[in-house]
């Protein structure tokens, strides 16, 4: 059952088309990356999912039903910038957001305290938001987004402002939520995080989906013609007929194979001349795919 489903959704502001016939679908238990350069239409797409704006055409479905506001009680949203009242005390604020999503005050307070313990920010509960560090605020917002136990979690740059220790803390929490069967949508520029966490992606540019689907499948469509070799001994194998281009950094070589180059043949040749410590057929990184796809489209 798709938790979110956009079908041919279009949204235009005055003269600019922000989202152009975008379709995507996110399943329960899936972590989905929404990627794209600035102004590509990510925020506009998210706003339509959240009912903040309506599409000019196309349809938005939440929890397998046409969009309706009551469904939003099952959605948690974390915008890129701190969506918190600066002068309000943290616990009051969390209870307020919980209540807005239909929780009773006592239940909201109980859950807020539980999450605060888990994310190690109990000391901040009695403080005003403005007294907390950026990272702490980010964690508070993270809690505000999850307090009502949403089935769909939408996060815009969730790890910005977090140090590596806290980023791992949040990542673990997200992976747990995913395992519990919640659908999670990321909107981010951090390709390394998407690569590590997401199962599926949608790359949008100028309001249109330019690449979407399962991350593994997408990568499999790109040629695996890059080889990384770490070795000791003769570097003569780098002149092999299988190689189109090679860079040797004294014992670490980055190789591009010819279109029909055979990696296994190269490994044999190399092993006969030198001691091989590492031989990796590298798949293209998401960043390379991103630059290649968006760059290509932009220039087209």
């Amino acid at each position: 059952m798709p938790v979110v489903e956009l079908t041919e959704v279009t949204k235009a502001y005055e003269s600019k088309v922000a989202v152009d016939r975008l379709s995507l679908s996110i399943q329960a238990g899936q972590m989905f990356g929404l990627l794209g350069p600035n102004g590509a239409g990510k925020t506009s797409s998210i706003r339509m999912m959240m009912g903040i704006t309506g599409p000019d055409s196309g349809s938005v479905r939440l929890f397998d039903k046409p969009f309706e506001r009551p469904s939003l009680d099952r959605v948690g949203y974390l915008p890129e910038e701190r969506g918190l009242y600066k002068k309000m005390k943290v616990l009051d604020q969390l209870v307020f957001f919980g209540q807005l999503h239909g929780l009773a005050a006592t239940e909201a307070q109980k859950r807020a305290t539980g999450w605060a313990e888990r994310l190690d920010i109990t000391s901040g509960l009695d403080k005003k938001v403005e007294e907390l560090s950026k990272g702490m605020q980010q964690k508070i917002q993270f809690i505000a987004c999850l307090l009502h136990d949403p089935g769909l979690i939408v996060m815009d740059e969730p790890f910005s402002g977090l140090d590596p220790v806290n980023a791992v803390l949040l990542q673990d929490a997200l992976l747990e939520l995913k395992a519990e069967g919640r659908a999670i949508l990321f909107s981010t520029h951090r390709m390394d995080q998407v690569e590590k966490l997401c199962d599926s992606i949608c790359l949008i540019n100028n309001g249109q989906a330019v690449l979407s689907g399962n991350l593994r499948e997408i990568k499999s469509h790109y040629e695996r013609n890059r080889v990384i070799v770490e070795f000791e001994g003769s570097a003569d194998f780098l002149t092999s007929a299988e190689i189109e281009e090679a860079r040797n950094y004294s014992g670490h070589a980055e190789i591009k194979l010819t279109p029909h180059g055979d990696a296994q043949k190269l490994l044999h040749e190399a092993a006969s001349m030198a001691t091989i410590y590492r031989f990796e057929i590298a798949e293209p990184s998401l960043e390379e795919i991103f630059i290649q796809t968006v760059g290509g489209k932009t220039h087209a």
Partner: protein
Amino acid sequence: MRNTLLVAKREYLEKIRGKAFRFSTVLLPAGVLLMLGATYFSGRNTHSGAHVAIAADTAPLANEIRRQMLEEKDAKFTVDVIAPATAQDTDNLMQLVRNKSIDGLLALENSATETPTASYASRSSMDFRTQGRLDSALNQSILRQRLSASGIKQGDADALLKHVNIEKLELDKNGKAGKSTGMAAFSKAMMMAFLITMPILLYGMDMARAIIEEKSSRIFEVMLAVIRPDDMLAGKLLGVGAVGLTQIAIWVVAAALFTGSALAAPLLSGDMALHFSVQEAVLFPLYYILGFFLYSSLFSGLASTCETAQELQMFMPFVVVPVWLSFGILPYLLSNPDSVWVVVLSLFPFTAPFVMLPRVGLATVPVWQFGVSIVLLLLSIWGVLWFSSRLYRIGILMYGKRATLPEIFRWLRYS
């Protein structure tokens, strides 16, 4: 509805805990009372110590002036008589005036004749009360002297010269005369004008600032994912309205406690007596709340088109002009509370709360004028809400730059 109430509750609690509330609830009436008290007590004290000397060629006229000066109950004059005074005495007394040992010197010549001459020397030409009292005492004494010279007996002269006070009366709408409240009416008008204007503007500005802050911190993104913009605006206005009501309740209770206290006694008697009618007790909260809604909803709409508090400055004339008009007309309002301009401003919705209430304390306002001003206020609130909710719906999601006028018109058309 539930979320609207939640927003209202949050606004209410945050505002009640905020500085603007404490400031306007405690400091504003305290400031006004301090002002009134200072005026009252300085009025009493200015004249109480006035020390005057009378230098005359003969004693009877000077002594009579002294007697009359000492009869003044409100101001305790000290009057020395030097008679007969030599030129040297007069010079010495002038020296005393110069070195501030005494406040003034009244020099009388030919005081036993039909046409005495008098001159008064003092350091302050602004002490009208002492001068007025001396003038009156001198002329009364000369009159008494002249009556006595024409053979009229002391008792008859006293009867002829008996002072009559003018009682100031004010006619109400039925033409019935009531006692005029004079100075108290003026003080009350000023007090009402301040007490109603300051909080309305303070909360309006506070609301505008809060909206800009919420916009820049992207709270709207989170809020609008659970609540409609109109419901959110309604919640905000309800919260602010409740804050206004709380403030009035606190003032009423404080006023009741104050009226019973010893401190209030001098303020609530004599010329400065403050009396509030039932009419005012009803109208004050009514105009207060209507003013609150009008200005707060106007500010909300305008603020949602801005990115920073500085940009909001551009819209300040919307507020400054009505307030400036209302306070500008105050002196005119005091002297002629039923003139055309005063009536126009007390009906015009943006100035009505600020002008109507002070006017009620000074004159009898026809009932139809209340009706018209309240209906106009309600219609304006409706109109401003229509306008503001449209700006708000779109404005709070527009980031990056302040909306231009053509953009604002487009937003009004779109939504």
